[in-house]
């Protein structure tokens, strides 16, 4: 974390609660880099989060107003605060289980209403805090605490889900693309309407160890080998992109995918 960002860290916070190799620290940095670049006064920022590891990115770490809510409800709390005080820049940061499973209805309806908030979803393929159960972004066949023989379900494509629901802007980047990620957050926060960023952030402790990524770096090597850009995806046979993580930015009204 650069010294410039220290002013954004709540006094007294000496360390994060994230495990070794967790991607959430990189996401944390990307968020602060974006708000720093945008020069948003801290008093005009409200960070809202739900329950889970990613919900602890802003609360208590960020030195701004933070609302640490219930499991799944972060987006709805955020909509209430933003609609009453439109001067607030409202940024939701939470995990994929929180935002896309238990909170999925709030997500799609906020996108449909095009509520003027930014939602950053840290997808780590499982419920990390509760012990590595299958989440809505777990890959097909992924080994989890609740699907020890392999996840039989396909993961959500969250970017296309929110775009279909009516989002203004959506992006997907992995934590191995920190500059692009930070730029996307900047764009989302400064764009009016519902903006969504999926951040692929690996979970070595729960998902990595169950899926035979014996070393943290192997999990990151896997991520780097699997992500491609939208431009690369366009040149590929669609069936070859199934195993890939397509990264980039999408805008409302664009021809999909």
């Amino acid at each position, binding site marked *: 974390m650069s010294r410039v960002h220290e002013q954004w860290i*709540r006094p007294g916070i000496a360390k994060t609660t994230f495990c070794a190799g967790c991607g959430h620290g990189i996401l944390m940095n990307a968020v602060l880099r974006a708000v720093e670049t945008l020069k948003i006064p*801290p*008093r*005009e920022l*409200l960070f*809202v989060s739900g329950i889970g590891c990613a919900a602890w990115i802003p*609360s*208590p770490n960020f*030195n*701004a*107003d*933070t*609302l*640490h*809510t*219930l499991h*799944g*409800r972060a987006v*709805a*709390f*955020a*909509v*209430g*605060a*933003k*609609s*009453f*005080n439109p*001067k*607030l820049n409202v940024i939701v940061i939470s995990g994929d289980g929180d935002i896309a499973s238990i909170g999925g*209805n*709030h997500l799609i*309806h906020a996108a449909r209403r095009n509520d003027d908030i930014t939602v950053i979803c840290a997808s780590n393929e499982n419920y990390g805090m509760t012990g590595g159960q299958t989440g809505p972004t777990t890959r097909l066949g992924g080994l989890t605490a609740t699907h020890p023989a392999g996840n039989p379900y396909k993961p959500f494509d969250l970017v296309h889900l929110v775009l279909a629901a009516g989002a203004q802007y959506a992006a997907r980047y992995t934590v191995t693309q920190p500059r692009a990620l930070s730029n996307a957050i900047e764009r989302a926060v400064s764009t009016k309407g519902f903006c969504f960023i999926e951040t692929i952030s690996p979970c070595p402790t729960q998902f990595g160890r169950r899926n035979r990524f014996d070393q943290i770096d192997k999990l990151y090597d896997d991520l780097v080998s699997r992500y491609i850009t939208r431009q690369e995806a366009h040149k590929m046979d669609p069936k070859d992109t199934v195993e890939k993580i397509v990264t980039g930015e999408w805008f409302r009204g664009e021809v999909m995918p």
Partner: protein
Amino acid sequence: MTAPLKKQTQYLMGNIAAAEGALAAGCRFFGGYPITPSSEIMEHMAKVLPGKGGVFMQMEDELGSIAAVVGASWAGAKAMTATSGPGFSLMQETIGYAAITETPCVIIDVQRAGPATGQATRPGSGDIIQAKHGSHGDYEIIALAPSSVQEMYDLTIRAFNLSEKFRVPTFVMTDEGIGHLREGAVLHKDFETINRRKEPGTMPFDTDDPLFVPPMPIFGDGENLLVTGSTHDGWGYRKVEQPEVHERLVKRLRQKILDHRDEIIETSEDFTKDAELLVIAYGFVARSARKAVKVLREKGYKAGLLRLKTLWPFPKDIVARLTSVAHKVIVPEMNYGQVAGEVAKVSKSEVIPYCRVNGEVISSIELIRELERHVS
């Protein structure tokens, strides 16, 4: 119970009077989801609130409604929602969140006959225990029970004032009978408005003040607030493994309400001074009970009525005092004895529940018959 006819008297529906009460009290955020028999409140707010500079949000479900209400309250709004049993059930987790984060908010529950979908268009009082105990853990809330269209207005105003003063979720526990009743009421401006206390730089989640209610800053004030539903210290830092922090917090959430019962609790009494047969009633049924008690007095029986305008915190001291005079206590209500159970905990005399759960209100005629059975 019905307002005397004055020049300013209007003829209107209970649900509309409640919405008008909210507006008069300063409510400027409504987040809701349609549900019978409460929807008129939502529709009235949708029509009137934007013109008063307020915000109306139709949310995707009741989980979203109450979450948006709590979010808006922290953004500085006097905020509310209105619902009925099924929606009230869905809101319970966030009600617990509002209790532990000490968020002022008002919920009007226009009760219908449950459980589940039950009789969506018929009255009931089946949510009284849920109002107090619906969310997990130990906490206190305030619940009021109007018996007339006038009280839908007056008690909704009072609900906002109590909610702001004590930083606690406050419920108006009405029912389909009162919600859809049309009668005269005066939408007066003759009341005090209480707003939450702000003190920049002070702890928002603990206090040594004898009121036990810390001041409440809002988002955007530059206070860098830490609001969390986890156990927290006075500044909002999560302290989930310190027994003393949790105990201090939960104890204060109780104390701030229970130590102010005298201020919060409102009841009214008819002929109770020498009443040997005491009726304890609330909501729509209190109207029938009032008539029944009057008829029994005319017949020379020593009957009296204690009407509860506050259900939670439960008015146990008043019940204990009056039941020490009465020989028998009849509690008519539209559930299987939810308030009768609370009465029995403190009553000095025999408690007889008179229960009705079929969606029909308890009439004064049948209540007279029931009371006569106990005096003869």
